[in-house]
């Protein structure tokens, strides 16, 4: 090995770091530093003129805060309603769409991805009209077919599921793209071998498709769980203050409201954020442990 080649290695490493800087600097400035600052903030009492260290006081306050626990309960409700539904629906749609022709596949990919591109605010406005008690499409349909007209967002038994439907509607696009790509990566010989062994479509799906989609499923489940834990826009736009009676208040919405509406409670909001951070980290680790094992085809 020549001396020039030996010298190149550290230089290349330096260069590599510099290539990372365009992404790294914003990451440190706008993600890592606020994250560290946010966690630290939870241990202080932040007033407009002064800040004093209060240790775990904010966390003690969290334990007895009924509103926070209502938000935790609702957020978990969202996760339970949305994540499995998105996983099942996106997998089902992908499995149906994948064998179709190129044009049909592109059409469905486009159709399911439109809500992702359209943005939460636009979609929330449409859903707001759909759920409207007096002029909404949903009540028009249920009224005509079932004689049932409800204030969907105004009742505690229907508000959360209604919002979950909205979140599901705009969460399907990305998992479908991922599953379609993953399905394309499964070698056709495996299906052929399974068919020769006498496996029907269901058994092929269960024993070939599903195990080989495990990495994609893991990705979908982890990103969806994190995304749904951070549900915010839909609560902000479709409800007033996470109502009725805190029925749709989520952790992130609660953080926002704590920080900005009863004025100045930034530190308490930061403490809530830290709890969310730990919870999400733990859930992600558990999901990786459970689903991250290497796939073995029997």
């Amino acid at each position: 090995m020549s001396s020039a080649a030996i010298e190149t290695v550290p230089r290349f490493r330096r260069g590599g770091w510099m290539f990372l800087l365009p992404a790294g600097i914003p990451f440190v400035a706008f993600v890592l530093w606020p994250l560290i600052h946010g966690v630290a903030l939870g241990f202080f009492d932040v007033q407009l003129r002064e800040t004093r260290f209060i240790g775990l006081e904010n966390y003690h306050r969290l334990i007895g805060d009924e509103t926070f626990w209502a938000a935790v309960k609702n957020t978990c409700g969202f996760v339970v309603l949305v994540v499995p539904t998105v996983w099942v629906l996106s997998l089902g749609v992908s499995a149906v769409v994948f064998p179709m022709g190129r044009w049909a596949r592109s059409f469905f990919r486009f159709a399911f991805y439109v809500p992702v591109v359209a943005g939460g605010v636009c979609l929330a406005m449409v859903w707001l009209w759909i759920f409207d008690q007096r002029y909404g499409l949903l009540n028009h349909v249920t009224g005509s077919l079932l004689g049932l007209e409800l204030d969907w967002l105004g009742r505690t038994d229907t508000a959360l599921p209604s919002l979950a439907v909205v979140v599901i509607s705009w969460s399907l696009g990305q998992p479908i793209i991922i599953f379609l790509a993953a399905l394309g990566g499964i070698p056709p010989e495996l299906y052929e071998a399974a068919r020769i062994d006498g496996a029907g479509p269901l058994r092929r799906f269960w024993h070939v498709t599903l195990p080989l989609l495990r990495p994609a499923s893991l990705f979908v489940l982890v990103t969806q769980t994190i995304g749904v834990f951070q549900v915010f826009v839909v609560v902000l736009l479709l409800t007033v203050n996470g109502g009725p009676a805190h029925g749709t208040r989520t952790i992130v919405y609660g953080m926002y409201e704590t920080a900005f509406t009863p004025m100045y409670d930034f530190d308490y909001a930061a403490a809530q954020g830290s709890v969310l951070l730990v919870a999400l980290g733990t859930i992600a680790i558990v999901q990786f442990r459970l689903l991250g094992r290497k796939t073995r085809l029997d």
Partner: protein
Amino acid sequence: MTGFQHTRRQWLASLPVLGLSAWSGCSRQRPVRDSRGRVIVEYWHQPMVQQVPELGDEVKEVGDFERFLARRFMAENPDIVIRTQCLNWEDLPRKVPISVLGGRPPDVLMDYVGRTSGFWYQGVLEPLDELVEGIEHDFQPRMFEASRLIGSDGVRRLHAVPLCGWVQVLVLNRAAWDSQGLGDLLPTDEDPRWRWDQFETALEAIAGPEVTPLGMQCASEQGDYRVLQYFWAFGAEVYHDRDYSRVALNSPQGVAALEWLVKAKRKGWIQSNVATAGYGFFDMFWRGQTVAIPSGVSMRRTYENALRDGKVTADFNGDGRVDMEVFYTLPPTRPEVPTTLPVSTNGLVVFRQEDPDRREAAMRFVKFLTSTETVGHYARASQMLPGRKSVGSIFADQPDVTRILGLAAECPVADMGATSPSYYDIRKRMPPYLQSAFLGLKTPAEALAGFEREAEGVLRGQLASTQPGDHPGEESAQ
């Protein structure tokens, strides 16, 4: 190798740019002067004034009026430049605290004293007593007193110079009753006061599938005084005898009031989405779906603006013409209960200034804004009550308003604790409990007990860290 060297050169060249960006981003202080040496004063304000007919096209949108005032001030004070910013109602409680935390608050803020008092208790406002020296007697006494708060040194000082205020009355769309031949059920122009049984009869008569007479909302704390008006009608109080260490709403009168409200919703007297309506109930008033809402006497001006914007579509006869006649009445109360009204003050505050020149400029601007002439402009434009007596009556051309304000002046002021340190924290906690009662999740007694429990927890925590001295309670406008 050349490529790496080139990258390194680029990197080194970009360092000053990055440094400059970081410096400008992290710089906490705004420049005091502009390039022409004029002192810059930032003025943030509520979207209070939309139209001033006498100023024609010069004032067409919110913010135009403040720009007009700023131009007039700058013409007289060429050494000062005023930069105005109109904040919408949602931004007011958010953007201002963030700007203070970021070290860049406005210099002058015009807002409701229920919000500005929070800044005073945080110690970020200048005392303004020097601005009213010798003219204290010209300010409306209740407004003035409500703006004087205890400081960290235990001394009561003027934290805001009162600009104007409002008092809540019950606004009816009289055309709804008249169109059905029910006008006789209402109070008269000469005596716009209700008896309680008369009030219930009028509601019962007008209620139907298309009309739920009473408009209100408890989806958020904004406009909570509209719901509280019915609590006061039963003799309930939010705080008793200016004791802000505990809430007093959970009382037999409070429970009776909430029971009545729940019954009223069940009977179709209150719109069914009261728990989630937000400000949509105002649109319902313009559409004729509700026909009575507690509001200020500026409602007639608001109606003119809504009519101009095409929002008013109330048509009870089905003849294609708008049926709307704004009629001010005194809110009804149960027998033996005096009418208690919330009154409110908007004032001007100055944030603490490091630079003496800017402090002086900000003070001059506030003095200009609170001159008799400007207060008169503001009051006429917003149809609110002027903060200074020397403005005189601005409602001389509206005898019904003059009459109702005369009656309101005799009523005791409802104490919402608006200038107490816990005002926002407490009021924020009430709507979910009211919603629970309206939705039948809790009985009225359970809901008020729950609110009381939560409020007591907040007050206990805040009492431990609050400043010494008493806290003045309620502001008033008459």
